[in-house]
C-alpha cells in the first residue's frame, strides 16, 4: 500500500471493540479514514487545528445542528497547495468550542505538480469529445487533485460537467495529458435494473395539492410551503427533454396547469403532493428546511418522455427516463412514466419521491460520491428516508398507500412488485450482508451503488423492526416500527452531519453510533439496536 490507514483503523477498532472483519478492500482504502473516538478526540482536535493552520484543510461550510442546540458541524475540505483534493473532507462536530466528533476521509502524502500542461478550455473540449455528439461543457472547470480509483495515486485533473441531450456527466480530465481519467453520470437514478414494456395508468388515491391560481388557470406551484416547489411536465416532448438536458434550463411554461382545481393527471398530482410531504417530513421530524436547509426550490418534472414513443428510444433511455426516477441536482427531480408493464408513473410512490429528494439532501450535505461504497451509502440513505417518510404519512400495512419495508411497491408492476426490499433484500437478488458486496470498482451500477445499498438499509430495518440477518444469523431486537423515527433521526444525523463524499460503510457505522450517542446516549436502547444491526450485516 502506498498510503496507510493510520489512526483511523485504530479508531474504528477502539470504537467497535472488535477486530476489523476480513472484508474486501475498498478502492479508496488508501485514504485516511477518520472516525474519532473519545480516546482519540484530543489528538484529532490538535491535528485538525494544525491542518487548518497550514492550509491542508479549509472550512467550506458550517451547518447548524437542527437536532441538538448549540452544536455545529463544520465541513473541512482538503486542499493541496491551494487546490482541492476531490473527495477529501473531514466533518467536525463542535459543541460550542468543544470537539465532539470528527469523521471523513483525508488523503495523506500527496506529491504531484500543481501546474497544468493544458488549459481548462482544452480539457473541457476533451471531455465534450469523449461524451459524444451534442454534448456541451457546463459551468467552470475546476482544477484539483484526484485520488484515482483503485489506489493508482494522485492526478492533477480538471473536473468538468458535461451535458448531453440525455445525461449530465462529471468528467475528470488529466491536466497534463488531456486524457479522461474517470467520469460518471450525475443523474441519480432510482432503479438499477429497469425493464421495457407497456402499461396502465396511475394509482387512484386522492391527495391535496398546494397550487397557484392565476386567473382561471391553476398552476402546480406550491405557495404554502416555505420552499418554492414546482411541478413541471414535458408532456412527452423529446425536443423539450433534450433541450432541458443540454441547457439545464426549465421554463415556467413547463409548469403543469389545470383549467379547474380538480387535477386529473396522476403523475402531476403525486409528484406535487409528495414533494410537499417530503418537505414536511424533513421540517417536522428532522428540523430541516428543504434540501439545503435554506429552502432551496424543488422542481419535479413528470412525463419526460411519452410511453407512445417507446419504440423510438434506446433501451438505456427507457431504463433511465421511462422506467426510472432521478435526481438531477439543484433541486430538479425527474419521474418517468413507466412503460406500463414493469413500472407505472414513478411519482406515484411516496417512498420513491422521498428517495429522490433525499439525494438532494445528500447533495447539500455529505455529497456522497455516487460510486462504489459511498454511492451505496447514498442510495441506502435515500431508501431509508423514503421508508421513514412513508411510515410518517401512511398507516403501516402492505401494498400501495401503506407504510412498508419495500421501495416502489405502488409503481412496480412486474414481480416481485417492488424495487428493493429493506426487510428481505435477497428476495429480490440484493445482498443483505457485507460479505456479499459486489461490483465494487466496476462500471456495473456505478460500482453496485443500488445493489449494495441494501446491506445498509437492511441494517436500518433490523435496528427498527428487528429480525435475524440471513447470512450472519445474528438477531437484532429492534426498537419497534412505532419508533422508526428514532432510528431515522440517527441515520439522518450521521449521513447529513458526519459523512463526507468518500465515506465507506464502516464510516456509516461509526457515524450512526456517534449520532445515537448524541441523541440518546451511548447506553441507550437505540444505540444498542443500531450497533447490533451493523454487526448483523457484517459492517464492523
Amino acid at each position: 500500500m502506498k498510503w496507510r490507514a493510520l489512526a483511523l483503523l485504530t479508531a474504528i477498532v477502539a470504537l467497535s471493540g472488535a477486530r476489523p472483519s476480513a472484508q474486501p478492500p475498498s478502492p479508496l482504502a488508501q485514504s485516511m479514514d477518520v472516525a474519532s473516538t473519545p480516546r482519540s478526540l484530543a489528538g484529532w482536535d490538535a491535528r485538525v487545528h494544525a491542518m487548518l493552520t497550514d492550509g491542508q484543510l479549509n472550512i467550506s461550510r458550517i451547518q447548524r445542528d437542527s437536532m441538538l442546540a448549540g452544536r455545529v458541524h463544520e465541513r473541512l475540505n482538503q486542499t493541496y497547495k491551494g487546490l482541492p483534493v476531490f473527495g477529501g473532507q473531514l466533518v467536525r462536530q463542535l459543541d460550542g468550542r468543544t470537539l465532539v466528533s470528527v469523521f471523513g476521509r483525508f488523503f495523506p502524502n500527496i506529491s504531484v505538480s500543481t501546474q497544468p500542461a493544458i488549459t481548462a478550455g482544452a480539457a473541457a473540449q476533451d471531455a465534450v469529445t469523449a461524451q459524444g455528439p451534442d454534448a456541451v461543457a457546463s459551468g467552470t472547470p475546476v482544477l484539483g487533485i484526484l485520488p484515482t480509483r483503485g489506489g493508482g495515486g494522485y492526478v492533477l485533473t480538471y473536473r468538468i460537467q458535461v451535458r448531453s441531450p440525455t445525461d449530465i456527466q462529471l468528467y475528470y480530465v488529466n491536466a497534463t495529458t488531456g486524457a479522461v481519467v474517470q467520469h460518471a453520470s450525475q443523474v441519480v437514478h432510482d432503479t438499477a435494473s429497469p425493464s421495457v414494456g407497456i402499461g396502465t395508468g396511475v394509482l387512484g388515491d386522492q391527495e391535496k395539492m398546494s397550487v397557484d391560481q392565476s386567473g382561471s388557470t391553476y398552476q402546480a406551484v406550491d405557495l404554502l410551503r416555505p420552499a418554492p416547489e414546482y411541478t413541471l411536465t414535458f408532456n412527452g416532448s423529446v425536443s423539450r427533454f433534450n433541450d432541458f438536458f443540454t441547457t439545464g434550463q426549465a421554463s415556467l411554461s413547463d409548469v403543469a396547469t389545470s383549467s379547474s382545481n380538480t387535477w386529473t393527471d396522476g403523475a402531476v398530482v403525486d409528484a406535487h403532493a409528495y414533494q410537499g410531504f417530503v418537505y414536511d417530513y424533513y421540517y417536522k421530524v428532522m428540523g430541516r428546511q428543504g434540501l439545503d436547509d435554506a429552502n432551496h426550490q424543488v422542481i419535479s418534472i413528470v412525463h419526460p418522455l411519452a410511453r407512445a414513443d417507446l419504440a423510438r428510444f434506446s433501451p438505456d433511455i427507457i431504463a433511465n427516463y421511462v422506467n426510472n426516477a432521478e435526481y438531477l441536482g439543484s433541486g430538479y427531480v425527474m419521474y418517468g412514466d413507466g412503460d406500463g408493464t414493469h413500472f407505472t408513473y414513478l411519482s406515484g410512490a411516496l417512498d420513491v419521491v422521498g428517495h429522490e429528494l433525499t439525494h438532494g439532501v445528500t447533495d447539500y450535505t455529505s455529497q456522497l460520491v455516487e460510486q462504489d461504497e459511498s454511492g451505496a451509502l447514498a442510495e441506502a440513505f435515500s431508501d431509508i428516508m423514503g421508508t421513514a417518510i412513508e411510515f410518517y404519512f401512511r398507516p403501516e400495512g402492505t401494498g400501495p398507500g401503506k407504510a412498508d419495508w419495500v421501495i416502489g411497491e405502488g409503481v412496480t408492476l412486474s414481480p416481485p412488485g417492488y424495487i428493493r426490499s429493506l426487510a428481505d433484500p435477497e428476495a429480490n437478488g440484493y445482498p443483505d450482508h457485507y460479505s456479499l458486496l459486489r461490483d465494487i470498482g466496476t462500471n456495473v451500477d456505478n460500482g453496485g451503488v443500488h445493489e449494495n445499498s441494501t446491506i445498509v438499509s437492511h441494517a436500518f430495518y433490523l435496528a427498527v423492526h428487528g429480525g435475524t440477518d440471513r447470512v450472519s444469523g445474528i438477531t437484532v431486537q429492534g426498537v419497534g416500527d412505532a419508533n422508526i423515527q428514532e432510528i431515522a433521526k440517527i441515520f439522518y444525523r450521521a449521513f447529513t452531519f458526519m459523512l463526507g463524499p468518500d465515506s465507506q460503510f464502516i464510516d456509516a457505522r461509526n457515524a450512526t453510533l456517534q449520532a445515537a450517542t448524541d441523541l440518546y446516549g451511548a447506553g441507550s436502547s437505540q444505540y444498542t439496536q443500531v450497533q447490533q444491526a451493523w454487526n448483523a450485516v457484517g459492517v464492523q
Partner: protein
Amino acid sequence: MRVRPLVSAFSFVFVVLCAAGAGAQTAPATPAGPAPAGWGSATVRLGVNAGLQAGASGFTENSTLQIYQENAPLTVAYGTKSGLLFDGSLGVHVKGRFGLGVAMSYSRATLAGQVHAGIPNPFVFGVLRPVDGTASGLRRTEIGTHLQALYLLPMNRRVDLMLSGGPSILYVQQDLVTNVNFSQTYPYDTATFQSATLTRVKKSAVGFNVGVDLSWRLTRRIGVGAMVRYTRATVSLPVTGQPSISAHAGGFQAGAGLRLMF
C-alpha cells in the same frame, strides 16, 4: 347572568303592580276623579311602552364549511341578551269585559356567539385543527305583531288589569356566522381564530302571546301602565347552502308607559 334582565323586568312590573294595588286601596274615590275602571265609556284603549325584552333561549348553529377541499364543521352557540323594547297596543271593547286588540313590539339586542370550528389541514385529508373564538356584535332585531283577545278586570276606580292572549307573528333579523377567518403559519399544525364572517338573515314565524297590562288612570282619559308579555315562536333561519337553523324568537317582554282611553 343571563336571567338578570328578566328578573329586573319582572321586578319592575311587580313594583308597579304593588304600587297600583296600594294606590287602589288607599286612594279615595272622588266624584270629580277618573271614570270608573273597566271599559266604562271608553271603547278604545291605546298604550305605548318602553322596556326590555329578555331574549328567548339561545340556539346553536351546526353547519359545514368547505375549506381546503374538505368539510370543516362549524358550531356557533348563540347566547341570549336582553334588548330594548318598544311596544304599542290598541284595544277595542267588544262586549262586557271582553275586547280585541293588536300590539306591535320592536326589540333589538346585540349578541355574542361562541364559535368552534375544525379547520382542515391544507396538505392532508382528515386532520382538523380546532379553532375557538367569539363572534361579537351579532345584531338581532324582532318585530312582533300580536293579535289579542282582551279581558279587562277592574281592580278599583283607578286601576284595572287587562289580560291578553292570542297569536303572534314574529319577524326576526339575525346576524349569523357563515364563515371563519383564521390565521396559520407553516407547518400549519394549528390555526388561530381571527374573526367571523357575518350574514344577516330574515325570517318570520307564527307563535303566540299572553300578557297582563296593569293601568292606572290619572285622568278620565289618560293613565299610566305597565305590561308584561310572553311571546314565542320558532323560526327557521335560512343559510345559503346549509340547513336552516332553528331558533326561538320572542321571550318575556316588560315595559311601562302611557295609557289613553277613548
